[in-house]
């Protein structure tokens, strides 16, 4: 498979226009994780996990201090 073919296939998959065989091929690729999972030491894992949580914490804190103004229709629907 070439990069061009893969680009077209993934594009069609994301738009929901792919034929069943393409869909199956991409889904099988996504499901296949054998022999790929590398062994990572516990300390490294903890570091990655802490970084992810810190990123999310930073975003939550930021969004609490700088809340985005909600559009009128969202306020309206929230009332129901």
């Amino acid at each position, binding site marked *: 498979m070439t990069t061009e073919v*893969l680009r077209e296939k993934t594009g069609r998959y994301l738009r929901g226009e792919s034929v069943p065989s393409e869909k199956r091929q991409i889904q099988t690729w996504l499901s296949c994780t054998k022999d790929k999972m590398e062994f990572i030491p516990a300390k490294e894992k903890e570091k990655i996990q802490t970084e992810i949580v810190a990123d999310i914490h930073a975003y939550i804190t930021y969004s609490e201090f700088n809340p985005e103004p909600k559009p009128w229709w969202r306020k309206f629907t929230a009332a129901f």
Partner: protein
Amino acid sequence: MMSRNFTPEQDLIDKLSVGDGPALEELSRRYGYSLYSYCMAKLNSPEDARRIVRNIFISLWENRDRLPENFSLSVHLYTEVRKSIVQCVNNKLKTSTNIQSIEKQVIPGFSVRELQKAKEFVHTGSEQKSKYYISAVKNRDYEDQWWNKYFIPAINLKGLKHGLKSMLNMW
């Protein structure tokens, strides 16, 4: 790695829906690394993996007040991470960034040989036992289907055998 917080997942989702930040942090602590390692296995790019995981949890936070009633977090994360990976590959190919890494890391995964690995039986350490289990399940399914097709589904085959046996004994 085990999380020290033992709050049930549903409680965390309920808290999240009312805007509780620590609940989202706890969920990301529980599932973040699994999602990260999955993304790494597919894309082999730590930056992309981290960005995908972060965006999934951020979108969950952004849509916290619109979570459906029977919301399943695992299904949501599973769907989102798969979609994001395909999106990431597509974006890279569109913008022609790291084409070489995609040629080396992603495209070989689409070969017939690699794709067939997904269909292989998962070895659980007790292969013999699993084989017997599968054959037993197949037999049971066959019996059920055969029985349901021609007879009353409320009575099972075992019950019928037992009834016939006792009738023959009596006779």
